[in-house]
């Protein structure tokens, strides 16, 4: 992408936020909700030296742009843990099991931002990720691109973050070792957001 195009994009994003902020002084925040069909939440981890990949089939995202600016805006993501899918039943069952995500006990993971800040390349949602019953401060950096599709304004929220599974107690017994299954888990998200209620 050229520098110019990238600048133009950033301007668009800024304008989106600015207009959201200036539109209504005492109005409720503008809510964007996820278009499930066009959104993906993927993760990858190193297993025995090789990168293994998976996705969550069910998750929901809400982005609230507060009228008084970015800092009060909010990103909320809820992930249906049993919907994890690495394409292999045995691996999926192991991941859902008591020694890993323990999805019967902790069926949902949730990220709720406390604030969103501007960064050099986009935005950073700072907040708490509750996973496997453990809440940790987590950064969710993202870029936002808006487009007009069929007369509607939609936004694409994309980004990547890395968390450490052991911070959340994911991996008990043998799985506490990081020799064969790495600690770092990379999470990639690409979410299509449309104005919603």
């Amino acid at each position, binding site marked *: 992408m050229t520098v110019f195009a990238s600048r133009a994009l950033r301007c668009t994003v800024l304008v989106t936020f600015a207009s959201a902020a200036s539109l209504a002084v005492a109005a409720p925040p503008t809510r964007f909700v996820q278009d499930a069909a066009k959104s993906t939440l993927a993760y990858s981890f190193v*297993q*025995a*030296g*090789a*990168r*293994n*990949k998976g996705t969550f089939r069910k998750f929901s995202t809400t982005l609230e742009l507060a009228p008084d600016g970015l800092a009060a805006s909010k990103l909320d993501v809820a992930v249906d843990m049993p919907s994890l899918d*690495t*394409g*292999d039943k*045995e*691996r999926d069952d*192991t991941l859902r099991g008591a020694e890993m995500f323990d999805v019967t006990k902790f069926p949902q993971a949730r990220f709720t931002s406390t604030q969103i800040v501007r960064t050099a390349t986009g935005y950073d949602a700072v907040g708490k990720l509750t996973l496997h019953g453990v809440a940790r401060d987590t950064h969710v950096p993202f870029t936002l691109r808006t487009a007009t599709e069929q007369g509607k304004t939609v936004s694409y929220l994309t980004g990547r973050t890395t968390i450490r599974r052991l911070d959340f107690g994911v991996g008990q017994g*043998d*799985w506490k*070792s990081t*020799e*064969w*299954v790495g600690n770092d888990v990379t999470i990639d998200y690409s979410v299509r957001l449309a104005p919603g209620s």
Partner: protein
Amino acid sequence: MLKLAGMTFRNTPSRWGSFAQSLHWLIVALLLLQVTLGLVADDLPLGMQKLAMLARHKSVGITILGLAVIRLAWRWSNPTPPFPDTLKPYERVLGHFTHAALYALLFALPLSGWLMSSARGFPVSWFGFVQLPDLVPKDTGLYEALLQTHHVLAIALGVIALLHVAAAVKHHYILRDDVLRRMLPFTKTR
């Protein structure tokens, strides 16, 4: 450099050189290790131990594949000690078939293993140093077929290796020729 019983690095028309011998016996040792790792992994319940065994099995398999490439290249760039003149025509055919099959299996087994790992969505890494590319996209049906293939090929390798060993023993103890001796270090060939 010390030359043991006329041993040379390259092959001669009468015996295998030390490099060819090293490759032969190294691959024998790795194949025995492979069978052990594979059988142990098969018996383990799903878990960390199984994952570790299979990871080692894959790494050793890729090592054998690499050694097989080197071996074939070495064979093509070196003289091959010929069969003894005493062999009957059908024995020559059988000998050539056995050797060709062994070489083919040294390629086919690791490749079928690599393919089945790709088809199952468990990429292959060589001892954690290099991640190998997936050869095929994930496909459960294909994985099942490749798993069967891998097992059948392993059994075929076992059978043909036994034939190979039986022939070596026959050459050594019954025919009393140099066929086994010329693949052994520290031996004199006549």
